[in-house]
């Protein structure tokens, strides 16, 4: 269906006498009738990482006179779909929205992320209809007189929108021209949503800047690193509240990425920070990383559970249900531990101390330390050489027909990650195209090493889960769900046997996957080694060694 063009205007003065003023401008060509007028609440929604905005979409919940609907429109203001709903308490994941035209369009964009309220407005909505000579409705007019109430209180421009009825764009355009010519309204220069965003200020996710700090090569290394780390600390802090409320699994993922990047910077370039800062804080960030690992691992299992179950051939997908219940139970336990940790004085102290220490570093004079351009080149070159050295040894062993031990492949994966984090940390220092190519070359190798390692870890985990499920009922893994259903520990012997057999099949499939990945490592490494990453980034090896 072609998207209808919606026309938007600003009403400079009051909206009180609007039907009469509109009628004056549109008659005799059109008739205007008022349908409804009353108080309305509007909530604008998007994900933490603004997926809808990136896709050019605006989602609004409009509640007026005991009914609520979700309206999805383009960022230019053209309505795409609407759907009635019982308003949930936001933030919620998409499953809070019943199936329907809005949900269908949101699914591929929003995915697993929750929708958060960006802004709330209250005021009045007046709905009118524009009729042609046949008394047929050709356009609908909405007059929106609202003020922002959250996150801050403030006025919004009074707006009038003309939306054509399908197939009547020409008539709606003509009505808009008549209104403009009569001087009743002036065309809106910015879409309504932009005015809301401007008035609302930064959203909850806007503090989470990630590694995109502003860097220039001549900055003192310690100042630049402090900036990068401050942004990462901002990401950690911005995500914590959502992790505690379990809004969606991606908040924990983003928090973990920020912690891992922080740890990598401390490990690989921490010596450029003064006062033994890296040595002081590294153990605390390791604690934080470890605290978050179990829940994340279980999230990954649960998210991929259906795909894993449908791939079974000998066992039936239903056989794995007790495993799902077991994983959900484990997650509940681990989440309580995670939340305790994130609410602890230790975590609060870590973040407060860390940010204060970084502020001090940023305020220090340049001193005799190197600039960040030189530091980045040196550290990237060093990490790159480590990857090449270890990868070459693995490839040589493969050539000689002796399969290198799994630990070597695991080490290579870690070295690749270090290189990747350095590239990401110092990204603003390099040409975007060169950076993109360097990351792409590395990603090919990382993917296959990840597949190898993940298969190994998952196999070990399945074994661990099997042992937990076989543990006697009094064991701590026996969990009663919130909904009162029995946990895996209470599965009948027949069911448990079927589940364990299905888990055996999963384990065998992971083994096959791991073997396949192992066979690909040497080839992918050769591609990476031949790509000349340092040359791509313009890092001269000799200078970088200096």
């Amino acid at each position, binding site marked *: 269906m*072609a998207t209808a063009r919606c026309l938007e205007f600003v009403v400079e003065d009051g909206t009180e006498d609007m039907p009469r003023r509109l009628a004056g401008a549109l008659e005799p060509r059109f008739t205007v009738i008022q349908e409804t007028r009353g108080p309305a609440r509007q909530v604008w929604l998007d994900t933490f990482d603004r997926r809808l905005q990136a896709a050019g979409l605006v989602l609004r919940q409009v509640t007026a006179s005991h009914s609520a609907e979700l309206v999805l429109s383009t960022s230019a203001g053209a309505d795409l779909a609407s759907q009635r709903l019982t308003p949930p308490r936001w933030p919620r994941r998409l499953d809070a929205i019943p199936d*329907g035209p809005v949900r269908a369009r949101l699914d591929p964009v929003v995915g697993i992320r929750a929708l958060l309220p960006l802004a709330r407005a209250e005021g009045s909505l007046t709905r009118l209809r524009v009729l042609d000579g*046949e*008394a*047929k*409705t050709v356009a609908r007019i909405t007059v929106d007189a609202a003020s922002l109430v959250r996150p801050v209180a403030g006025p919004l421009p009074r707006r009038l929108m003309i939306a054509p*009825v*399908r*197939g009547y764009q020409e008539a709606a355009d003509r009505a808009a021209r008549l209104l403009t010519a009569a001087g009743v309204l002036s065309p809106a220069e910015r879409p309504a949503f932009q005015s809301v965003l401007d008035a609302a200020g930064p959203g909850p996710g806007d503090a989470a800047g990630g590694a995109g700090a502003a860097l220039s090569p001549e900055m003192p290394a310690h100042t630049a690193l402090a900036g990068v780390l401050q942004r990462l600390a901002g990401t950690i802090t911005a995500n914590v509240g959502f992790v505690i409320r379990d809004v969606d699994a991606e908040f924990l993922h983003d928090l973990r990425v920020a912690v891992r990047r922080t740890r990598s910077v401390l490990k690989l370039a921490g010596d450029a920070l003064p006062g033994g800062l890296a040595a002081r804080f590294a153990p605390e960030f390791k604690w934080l990383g470890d605290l978050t690992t179990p829940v994340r691992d279980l999230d990954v299992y649960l998210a991929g559970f259906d795909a894993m179950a449908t791939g079974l051939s000998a066992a039936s997908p239903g056989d794995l249900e007790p495993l799902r219940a077991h994983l959900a139970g484990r997650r509940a336990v681990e989440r309580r531990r995670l939340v305790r940790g994130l609410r602890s004085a230790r975590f609060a102290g870590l973040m407060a101390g860390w940010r204060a220490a970084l502020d001090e570093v940023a305020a220090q004079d340049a001193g005799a330390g190197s600039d960040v351009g030189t530091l980045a080149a040196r550290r990237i070159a060093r990490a790159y050489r480590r990857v090449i050295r270890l990868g070459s040894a693995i490839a040589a062993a493969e050539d000689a027909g002796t399969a290198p031990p799994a630990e070597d492949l695991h080490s290579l994966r870690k070295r690749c990650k270090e290189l990747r984090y350095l590239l990401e940390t110092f990204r603003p220092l390099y040409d975007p195209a060169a950076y993109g190519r360097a990351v792409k070359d590395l990603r090919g190798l990382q993917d296959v090493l990840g597949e190898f390692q993940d298969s190994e870890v998952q196999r070990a985990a399945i074994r661990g889960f099997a042992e937990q499920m076989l543990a006697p009922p009094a064991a701590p893994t026996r969990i009663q769900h919130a909904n009162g259903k029995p946990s895996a520990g209470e599965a009948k012997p027949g069911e448990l046997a079927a589940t364990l057999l299905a888990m055996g099949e999963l384990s065998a499939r992971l083994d096959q996957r791991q073997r396949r990945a192992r066979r690909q490592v040497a080839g992918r490494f050769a591609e990476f080694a031949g790509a000349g990453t340092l040359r791509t980034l313009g890092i001269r090896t000799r200078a970088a060694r200096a």
Partner: protein
Amino acid sequence: MRVFATYNIKGGVGKTSAAVNLAYLSAAAGYRTLLWDLDPQAAASYVLRVKPRVKGGAKALVRGARPLDDAIKGTDFDGLDLLPADFTYRNMDLALHAAKRPTRQLSRLLGPLAAEYDVVFLDCPPSISLVSENILQAVHTLLVPLIPTTLSERTFDQLTSFIGGQDGRRPQVLAFFSMVDRRKRLHRDITARLPAERTDIAAAVIPAMTVVEQMAVRRAPVPAFAPRSAAAARYRELWEELQVRAGLDGPG
């Protein structure tokens, strides 16, 4: 997407009234609904205040020169769109005949609309032709308005045996008594007897009432301009029954 058609070989039996009122009720229940006025007399288009004109006419639609999507018009009612009639629909048989697999063309044309609509109603012209064969291939349920007379009963028998003799897909048939006048003994007798003999007759009965004739004056569906009328209540009963028989399990 569920496709329903109001169909009878005879004219003037209440096809258009049923199509417009049921399509309105479907949209009001939250189903994204399209009504396609296939009758060149364009009564449904008139009631819904849409000009009976499709650029390029029947030929352009059947040949695919103009996508169905382009010709659709919004009505005054939320969730209800109309594909208007066009006078060239009187020659639709010729256009269909020129196409490959001439009995499957309506089905093919409706296919792409499945993403946009939950329910489609076809308001069919009174005839038995290539258009009718296309309709039988395209619909899930054929709604047949029956005036309770002996001749109508005979026509319904002819129709069901015609459908029974069709190759391929056969739609579900649901007849309902239409324009029933309780003052007439024959009407009373047939509406009492026939549902006991056949399972393909709806329990809901649409009476002959002025308010139904008023649709053409008010140019709106009965439940929209006279929601509390007895006729609106009967159409609601018919819609409820249709939902159950067609297995519609709620919008979205």
